[in-house]
């Protein structure tokens, strides 16, 4: 009896939660495919009663800007993720070696940066005024390259690899770097996958570094481009005109905003079912290990 009651409540509550999480996406997709006049008249709706792909047509008529933003995002994500993964795992490996005398000192050196920092202003001035990275790809890649949390997660994963492996490799005459590259890395695929995904997601969704450090349109990543367009439809019109489009008065502004949103989110949504599994597994490892 209790079981029944609980099941009813449970199924109902979970279904409501899931719907609340999904419906906003449906809303965006459908309004990107609705006739502009219909939107102005009746607002954004869940089903495109007046189906139209006008917004997408206009968006892709002169795709230079979007393609460029995609390329920037892809490049930044690829370089940032690979380099970040390499440095994170290498650092974590050194810190995980129990025979490494100074490992606690170095761990604290890294960890302390999460406790205390100089704030946004000195960091910003360092990057802009002293390192002169404004409007360079470095400003999009470097600031997010390492994350203490990932180093710690990686370190705790590596600590679970039996020490005997390192010991025996040493006896066989392998150097520290070789042990890392040929023994430890292949053994830590689950952790690498998890942290790689976290890094990739962070890079793909990043707009903050662009907001601070990028004014050159050639360097605008996808999310920042979307942000710009959402806030400034005049800018969008200009971008279209700059690309040689004949701008009619009836540019489907509202539909375009939503079409842009779909385009900027698309790859994540497509990769999502594949990627989600690894996230769940990674989180599960992390939670069980504490």
């Amino acid at each position, binding site marked *: 009896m209790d079981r029944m009651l609980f099941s009813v409540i449970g*199924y109902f*509550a979970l279904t409501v939660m899931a719907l609340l999480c999904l419906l906003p996406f449906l809303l965006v997709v459908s309004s990107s495919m609705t006739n502009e006049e219909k939107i102005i008249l009746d607002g954004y*709706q869940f089903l495109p009663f007046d189906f139209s792909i006008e917004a997408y047509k206009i968006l892709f008529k002169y795709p230079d800007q979007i393609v460029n933003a995609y390329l920037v995002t892809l490049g930044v994500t690829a370089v940032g993720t690979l380099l970040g993964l390499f440095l994170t795992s290498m650092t974590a490996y050194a810190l995980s070696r129990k025979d490494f*005398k100074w490992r606690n000192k170095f761990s604290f050196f890294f960890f302390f940066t999460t406790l*205390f920092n100089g704030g946004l202003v*000195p960091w910003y001035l360092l990057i802009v005024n002293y390192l002169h990275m404004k409007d360079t790809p470095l400003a999009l890649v470097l600031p997010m390259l*390492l994350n203490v949390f990932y180093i710690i997660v990686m370190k705790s994963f590596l600590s679970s690899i039996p020490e005997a492996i390192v010991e025996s490799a040493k006896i066989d005459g392998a150097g520290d770097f070789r042990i890392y590259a040929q023994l430890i890395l292949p053994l830590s695929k689950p952790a690498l996958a998890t942290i790689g995904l976290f890094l990739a997601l962070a890079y793909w969704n*990043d707009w903050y570094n662009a907001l601070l450090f990028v004014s050159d349109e050639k360097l605008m990543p996808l*999310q920042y481009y*979307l942000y710009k367009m959402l806030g400034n439809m005049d800018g969008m019109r200009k971008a279209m005109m700059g690309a040689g489009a004949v701008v009619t008065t009836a540019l489907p502004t509202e539909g375009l905003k939503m079409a842009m949103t779909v385009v900027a989110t698309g790859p994540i949504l497509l990769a999502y079912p594949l990627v989600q599994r690894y996230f769940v597994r990674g989180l599960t490892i992390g939670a069980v290990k504490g």
Partner: protein
Amino acid sequence: MALRTFWKDLKQYKILLLMMTPAVLFYLLFAYIPMGGIVLAFKHFDYSGGVFGSPWNGLDNFRFFFDSGDAYRVTRNTALYNLAFIVINNGLQIIAAILLFEVGGRWFRKIIQSAVFLPYFISWVVVGAIAYNLLNYDIGTVNMLLRGLGLGPVDIYNTPAYWPYLLVLVSAWKSLGYGTVMYLAAITSIDTEMYEAAEIDGANIFQRIMRVTIPNLYPTVIILALLSVGNIFRGDFGMFYNMVGNNGMLFSSTDVIDTFVFRSLIMSNDMGMSAAAGVFQSVLGFVTILAVNYAVRRYDKDRALF
């Protein structure tokens, strides 16, 4: 003697040290050097002088920050929002995890898990676009619905009173999946013998949850909550900025330390005050983390951060 051991160690660990060098340099450059920039909070910044050449102005930046009333407003908002996020988000995540654990077959679980995890994967920019889509005065779905029900539309973007609820809702929405998976993992690792024992003792499902599942989640809940309390003075800039933007009408209820610092730096170019607010935030955060760590230590020594 000490020096000689030092050289010996250096030689022995030279590869490991070399492997760590990029990360060490990274944090020296991007974390430790900016700490020195804290002096900016006590200076009147001008570009020709830079960080070191600008003239000192004592505590003027802080005085200005506190006298304007901004300090009180942004600190209160940051702390209250984070408190609400901690309580509500964790509560919902635990409820969802327990329900998922107790109810449904493999497929149902998978589908629900995928659905609630989805918002975690999108950027705050996209969340901002979705919010606009829902809340816009003229064509937003919410207002269309209200009109359809014969109620007047609501000017959400110009009414501060709605925003605490909206921001709490959005935060819960975006973090639900991540937390649910984490708590689900914790529940799955509970010893099944405890459930069997409860069953034999005649516990119904509600008693089972109250007496077995929830008590077993306490350690996880407490540690996660304490850790987030340590970050209580740090706002999620992406969320606030993309939901609210620079809409001054809403600042009374939406401005947090992070958005204030950003605005003073980028919009008004007030380096001194921005730096002062940043230092204020860092010091508050540091003190809170020390206090939290002390609390964790008393609760469970092994779980303490340091």
